[in-house]
């Protein structure tokens, strides 16, 4: 047995994003009903079709039941006790960053996402979302020169209503699941990306989601469309302050890839996870799905999930186009009393489609970490292939890990391969590293990043370094 106390020290997690920005906000009253939805839509000056979309979703949601099949245990959510719209007060129309409240800019500065012209990151365009609204999007003009649209979804509703009307809800229908229906009814902001035909997006695009208020939920909605022969790499980061209450985050992300297009979507999720006793933390119920509509299209999800008290998330691919490719690379780290039920669905519909799943779950403390995945071969998916690899690593002897792989094949001429393993960081491995002068904590962190190597290799360069640091931080007792 690895020395329990040492392990406990090592996995103690400091959270450096737990501050609250003191800013005047405009909040609507708590609760959810048709009037609230109309109010949100009105505040956002939305066209009629979108209000109808919301109301339809709300009707469906009222008839649905909160799912209970996940290996998660949590206090029942009171949906009437949540504020569905919260925005920092600022001028009606902002024409430049100079008019953004300096407190907001400061907040993003502190999070390592500087937005101002002088300081902004040079190699990546950022859309910064604060509670229910998008604050700023950098590099818009530069991207526009290439025909790339990158803006908040609220702006897209105003300026590109045709694209929104055509694609919104086509990948994740309003009635898809309980949380997707809720999001469809009340979503506030999020990012919109459109890559025109033949364009390789000249830089990485990224959205940074920040929850600031403790009593309002965040319901962001992201839509990415990659036209024929285009490609884009999109990054997403999230943090929240430390509150002793739970905040609901229910997002929907829809990706659409046409012929020969490719979308790479990477997430580093670091929402506040609650304290050592499991008090507070974000409830993260997210529906992410990509549709490989075109021939030879490709959608690749990579995620590093380290935060949230509860994670319920299955980024999936619908492989319709012939020879389309779906990928899912995941690292999920849980500690203390965190619970994660995460995985993917690879739905092979078209012929000669291919999917790869690599999932690495790390459970420490008293946490619970489950992989749940579905691989389905439809009747027309002849010559299709899937490869899945699900590995779990346990740290200490109080944590648990589960794997729930579901396989459905209606096509005999297809291949599904599944490998799974569970390991524990062994005392002998730690002793080996220590006996070479490597400190205990560093030894654990080396082994954890080693375990995640296959997934980190899939992340964009800077993200991989950040993910590595984040895991080390989460597993380091002496810092903070």
């Amino acid at each position, binding site marked *: 047995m690895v*020395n329990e106390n040492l392990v406990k020290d090592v996995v103690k997690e400091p959270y450096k994003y737990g501050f609250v920005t003191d800013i005047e906000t405009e909040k609507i009253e708590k609760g959810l009903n048709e009037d609230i939805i109309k109010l949100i839509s009105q505040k956002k000056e939305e066209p009629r079709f979108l209000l109808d979309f919301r109301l339809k979703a709300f009707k469906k949601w009222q008839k649905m039941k909160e799912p209970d099949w996940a290996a998660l245990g949590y206090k029942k959510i009171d949906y009437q006790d949540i504020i569905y719209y919260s925005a920092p007060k600022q001028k009606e129309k902002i024409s430049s960053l100079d008019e953004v409240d300096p407190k907001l800019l400061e907040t993003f500065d502190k999070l390592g996402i500087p937005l101002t012209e002088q300081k902004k990151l040079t190699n990546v365009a950022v859309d910064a979302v604060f509670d229910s609204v998008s604050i700023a999007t950098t590099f818009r003009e530069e991207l526009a020169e290439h025909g790339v649209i990158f803006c908040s979804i609220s702006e897209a509703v105003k300026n590109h209503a045709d694209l929104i009307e055509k694609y919104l809800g086509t990948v994740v229908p309003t009635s898809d699941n309980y949380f997707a229906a809720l999001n469809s009814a009340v979503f506030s902001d999020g990012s919109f990306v459109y890559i025109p035909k033949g364009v390789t997006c000249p830089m990485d695009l990224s959205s940074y989601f920040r929850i600031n208020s403790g009593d309002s939920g965040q319901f962001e909605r992201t839509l990415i469309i990659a036209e024929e022969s285009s490609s884009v790499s999109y990054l997403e980061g999230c943090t929240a302050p430390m509150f002793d209450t739970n905040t609901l985050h229910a997002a929907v992300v829809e990706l659409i890839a046409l012929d020969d297009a490719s979308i790479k979507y990477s997430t580093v999720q670091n929402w506040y996870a609650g304290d050592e006793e499991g008090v507070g933390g974000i409830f993260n119920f997210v529906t992410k799905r990509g549709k490989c509509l075109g021939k030879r299209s490709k959608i690749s999800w990579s995620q590093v999930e380290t935060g949230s008290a509860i994670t319920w998330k299955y980024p999936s691919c619908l492989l319709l186009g012939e020879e389309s490719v779906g990928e899912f690379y995941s690292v999920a780290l849980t500690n203390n009393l965190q619970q994660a039920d995460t995985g993917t669905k690879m739905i092979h519909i078209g012929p000669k489609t291919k999917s790869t799943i690599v999932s690495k779950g790390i459970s420490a403390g008293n946490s619970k970490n489950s992989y749940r995945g579905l691989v389905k071969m439809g009747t027309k998916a002849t010559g299709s292939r899937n490869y899945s690899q699900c590995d779990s690593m346990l740290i200490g002897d109080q944590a648990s890990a589960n794997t729930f792989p579901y396989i459905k094949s209606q096509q005999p001429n297809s291949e599904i391969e599944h490998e799974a393993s569970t390991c524990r960081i*062994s*005392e*002998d*491995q730690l*002793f*080996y*590293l*220590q*006996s*070479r*002068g*490597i*400190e*205990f904590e*560093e030894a654990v962190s*080396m*082994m954890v*990043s*080693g*375990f*995640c*190597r*296959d997934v980190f290799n899939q992340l964009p360069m800077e993200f991989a370094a950040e993910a590595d640091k984040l895991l080390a931080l989460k597993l380091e007792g002496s810092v903070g």
Partner: protein
Amino acid sequence: MQSKMKESDPILEVENLSASTDNLPILKGVSLTVYPGEIHAIMGRNGCGKSTLSKIIAGHPSYTITNGEIKFLGENINSLEPEERSQSGIFLGFQYPIEIPGVSNLEFLRVSTNARRKFLNKEELDTFDFEELVKEKLEIVKMDQAFLSRSVNQGFSGGEKKRNEILQMALLEPKIAILDETDSGLDIDALRIVASGIKRISNAQTGIILITHYQRLLDEIEPNYVHVMSDGQIIKTGESDLALELEKKGYEWTDNFIKET
């Protein structure tokens, strides 16, 4: 010759050491002193406690010292962490070097080497400088650079694992190296490479303890002393000819010593 060596201070002093694991006594009063430039061989049957002795000197957390002490360069190290022992110059070459999937051998060797260098107040090496150093050391154990890009010991043959151990010894330049059955599982060519590596790394300031079952390693590296262990004790100490005698007569011969004592 012998007496001249002893003019300097000992590197390692194991004094009447008893230790147990899960309340089971394994070592029952072992004493052993190693001076600079000396090579000691410890022989004995499986389960006699010789591997345990090496692990305890390196600080393995599974064992509890119940009596006696271990002194390194005159200081009691009973309560030092394994990494502190390594940084200060104690090296254990493992009998079964463990595989560590995903951790690159190069990075592992660099972090390890830098931990020791830091202790010695030497400048820590970046990846480029380290690669220069490691290339030089690879030659000692006739290892190919391809080893560096693999995960630590993963998929290595028995011989490759042992050579990787000697490579680590070459990089860490320890004051004392305890090599636990470094010869086991090696063919004759690999044994020669490993033995010549050990000889190149050691010098008049370092001490070596070879734990082995067989004479063949001792044919390559002649020890100054041979100790025979049985049931957690050193039951006989002699010079290199003791190993030869043991090879001839077998361990049954040593059983008589226990009866005598």
